[in-house]
Structure formats: C-alpha cells, structure tokens
C-alpha cells in the first residue's frame, strides 16, 4: 500500500495523478479462509481489521452482498459520543470514541473525526435529573461529560431557541470530545487497511446459507459458490435475523426503519452536535454546509430502507421549534436504514449456539459511534472466546436477566 501524504499528493500532481493505487484490491474468493466476516459495513470491517492488527489473523474474507459501507454505515448521521449510563456501555463506547481520536493517523486515511462536542438537551425536569445522573455516572466511568446550564447551551450553540413555549431548554449533557466523522471514510479506511494486510473484501457476494457439521460451522453458501471457514462472524445489522435463521438460532431482535435527511448547504451556523430527545430530533452541520438531521425510528418491522413520512414531519417540526432559523430550509435528500433493535437497546456481541459462529448486532439506532470499539471487542471475542469489553453484551444476558438498559438512560435517540 502506498501511503497517503502531502508528499504523495505533490508527487502525483507532478505526474498527472497516474500513480494512485486502488484503495483496496478486487479479490476472487478462495476455497476457504480462517475467518469469514459477513457484512462489509463499519463493524464488519473493523472486526476484520482488529483480527489482523491485534491478533495476527490475516487469512480473512469480508463478504458483502451489496457495496462496501452501503448499509447503515452510509446512512447514519455520523454522531460519535460515549455519554451512556451503564458501565458496560460506557466502557465500549468510550473505547470506541478514543480509538476514533487517532483513527485517521492509524489507518493513514482521513476519516475526518471532528470532536466538536455533543450536547443532549434537557427539556423536561425528568430529563434534567436523568442527565445529571448520567453526568455523575460518567464521572465515575472516566468519561468526560458535564451538565451545563441553559446560558452555556446558548453560548455554545447560538441558533438554539432556549425559551420555547412547550419545551424550554433547561440544561444539557455536554460531551466536549464527542463529535462526528465522515462515515464513508471509516468504511473505506478500514477496507484499505484490511486489503493491505492481505484480507479479501468481496463485494456483491451474498451469503445464502450457513453450512455446519456436528454443531460446528464449516462455511457459507454464497452466490459465488461455497466458501469454507474456521470461524464465522455475522455482522449484518438489520439483516441479523435473516443470517441467524440460516445459522439455526433465534435472536431477541426486531428490524425497523430509521430515517435521516439533509438540507441544502448553508453557511456555517452550528459547530456542535445537538440532540433533543424529548421533542425527538437531532442535528449537526456537515463540512459541506448541509444540516444533517435525524429523528425517531418506526415502530413496526420493516426491511424497505424507507420509513414512514409522518416521522419526518415530527422530526422537522421538533427541530423548527428548537432552531427557528431553519424553518425555510429546503431538504435535499431523505433516506432510511434498517436498524436492529434489542429489548434493552444495547448491542449483542456474542458466541452463538452454533460452534465457531459469532454475532455482533443489535446496535440499533446508534452503531456508527461504536465501530472501532465494536470491532476491537468482536475480534478479541472471536480469537480468545472472551473479551472484557464484549462479555456483558452476550446473548445470554436476556435469559439471565442481566440487561444493559439504555432505553431509559439514553432517552430515545441513540
């Protein structure tokens, strides 16, 4: 792999940009690999990357039925934060956030991590108490957050209306080192690094069945033929139920549509991320100037990658009340992704009833922020059979009543 650098740009400028390599190699599937990861989104690619980087396992294929990073990795609102209430959540999300800090340098690929700060508005007294509690919990967990007063909210984000008639801003949970990153670049950067380690990133390769012998996985059927493997990692977000069905086990997961939209680009007006969970909308401004907006998920099972229109209306209505100046903005694009929701709104990183088969899913509406930490934990789990970051998120927690309840703690939006 040729390294990207200012020198490389200068060199290529002089020779007409003829010397750039493909970012990742186009590979033909081998008969078998040590490890197959299903799903070349952020989580799948990060799992493969840390298998190679941390554990030296490089005979790995990452299978993707569509194109790289074309699922939820390319459909989210790119928010990165780690201000969760429960200890296991804080551990994995903060690990992830801290890995994002140096990810561009590590991958030699600019993921545009921008720790511009994330604030979650408290607009009811219940929320004030909830976020104060989270701030105290975060202090014990070593996650830098604080509860700030309305005046500070207004100072950090002048376009907010803090005196709304229905839901005035009573304060906010502020995480100064949260922020955003370029979502596509995260997938591309990991894919390039995986390819550089000799791994195969196989796009347009759809898994149609899981083959096993004596309760041990032996490989997967695909539209490009059978591919054998020693271990299998299923990292497919919304389609986790479909893959679990092939592998012969059930999941406590339902897949629903979550939507996002962006406005026309405008001049810089907002340099923090704001989440308003009571009125249910969140917004940040991209480097291109578009206002990036997200809202609530639909309440019913759906695989269409297209959500209900009235949810867009609710989201936009909430944000216009919070940010009156956006009321005349035109929206450019709107899209949906299929998110995999668990009952306690926490992910599953776990062994499965099928030997050699592991699953990483259930990130629901908030997976992007967790990509590096999730890959780190999943890789360790697949190699060692246990991981301090992943063990609390096992499938068995539902049976054993060890919920990691973030549905209450994090409000609704993740």
């Amino acid at each position, binding site marked *: 792999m040729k390294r990207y650098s200012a020198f490389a740009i200068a060199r290529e400028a002089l020779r007409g940009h003829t010397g750039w390599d493909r970012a990742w190699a186009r590979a033909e599937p081998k008969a078998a690999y040590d490890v197959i990861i299903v799903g070349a989104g952020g989580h799948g690619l990060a799992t493969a990357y840390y298998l190679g980087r941390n554990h030296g396992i490089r005979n790995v294929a990452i299978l993707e039925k569509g194109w790289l990073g074309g699922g939820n990795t390319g459909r989210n609102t790119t928010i990165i934060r780690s201000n969760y209430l429960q200890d296991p959540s804080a551990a994995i999300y903060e690990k992830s956030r801290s890995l994002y800090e140096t990810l561009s340098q590590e991958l030699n690929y600019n993921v545009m991590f921008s720790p511009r700060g994330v604030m979650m508005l408290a607009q009811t007294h219940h929320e004030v108490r909830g976020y104060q509690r989270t701030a105290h919990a975060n202090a014990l967990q070593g996650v830098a957050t604080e509860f700030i007063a309305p005046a500070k909210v207004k100072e950090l984000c002048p376009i907010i209306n803090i005196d709304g008639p229905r839901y005035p801003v009573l304060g906010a949970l502020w995480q100064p080192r949260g922020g955003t990153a370029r979502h596509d670049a995260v997938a591309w950067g990991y894919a390039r690094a995986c390819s550089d380690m000799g791994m195969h990133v196989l796009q347009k390769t759809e898994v149609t069945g899981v083959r096993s012998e004596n309760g041990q996985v032996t490989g997967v059927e695909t539209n490009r033929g059978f591919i054998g493997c020693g271990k299998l990692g299923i990292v497919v977000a919304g*389609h*986790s*139920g*479909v893959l679990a069905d092939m592998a012969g086990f*059930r*999941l*406590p*997961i*339902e*897949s629903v549509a979550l939507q996002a939209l962006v406005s026309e680009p405008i001049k810089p007006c907002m340099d923090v991320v704001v989440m308003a969970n009571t009125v249910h909308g969140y917004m940040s401004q991209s480097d291109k100037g578009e206002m990036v907006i997200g809202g609530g998920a*639909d*309440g*019913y*099972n*759906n*695989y*269409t990658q297209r959500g*209900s*229109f*009235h949810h867009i209306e609710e989201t936009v209505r909430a944000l216009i009340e919070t940010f009156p100046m956006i009321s005349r903005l035109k929206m450019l694009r709107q899209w949906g992704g299929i998110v995999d929701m668990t*009952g306690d709104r926490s992910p599953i990183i776990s062994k499965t009833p099928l030997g050699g088969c592991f699953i990483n899913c259930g990130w629901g509406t908030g997976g992007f922020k967790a990509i590096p930490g999730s890959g780190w934990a999943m890789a360790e789990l697949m190699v060692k059979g246990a991981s301090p970051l992943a063990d609390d998120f096992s499938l068995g927690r*539902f*049976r054993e009543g060890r919920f990691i309840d973030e549905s209450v703690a994090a409000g609704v939006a993740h």
Partner: protein
Amino acid sequence: MLILQCPCCGVDADETELSPGGEAHLKRYGPGSSEDDFEGYLFMRENPKGVHFERWRHAHGCGKWFHAARCTVTLEVFGTYPAQSYAPPQDILDRIAARRPGWRWREFA
C-alpha cells in the same frame, strides 16, 4: 403510507391512527414453565424478511386491538383479523400462499 382496515370498526386507518404492537400470536408462559419457553416468550422475536403477523391497535379510532398479516419487504397487506384469534384465518393464509409461495412463519406456514 401504511393503511390497515380495522376489523372492529371497519375503518381504513392510516398508520398515524394506529399503534404497532409487535409480533402476534405469542404464547404466554408463566411460572413453572421451562427457561427456554420463558426466554422465548419474553425476548425472542420473529423478524422475517417477508410475511409477518403483527398486533396493531386502532389507537386514535375505536381503540381496539387487532391482527394484521403484512409483508415487511413490500409493505403489502394480506389482511387484518380480530385479536380474538389463535391463528390467522384460512382465507388470509390462502392469499399469502398465492402471493408468496414457499413462505414460512413459525407454525402457520
């Protein structure tokens, strides 16, 4: 927009009038049942890419619960039927079989 006919009041209700209630025909297990059954009832859910049976409530209408048979890929509705049913009625199963050959969903296919 999803439109379901409420089998109680007969209104064609769009989804802003309805509240989704999750998987239909769950068998409730209580004290004394096996851990597998209890875990399955409480947490494990059908999550099909295709035909699905769900509970809905006509929340901003007559207020009654009912069942719906729907495709999660196309949002096609195969029919709705009263909540007081242990299984989908035969005419809805026939319609699904005609539209989605080879479909399966728990014990009903």
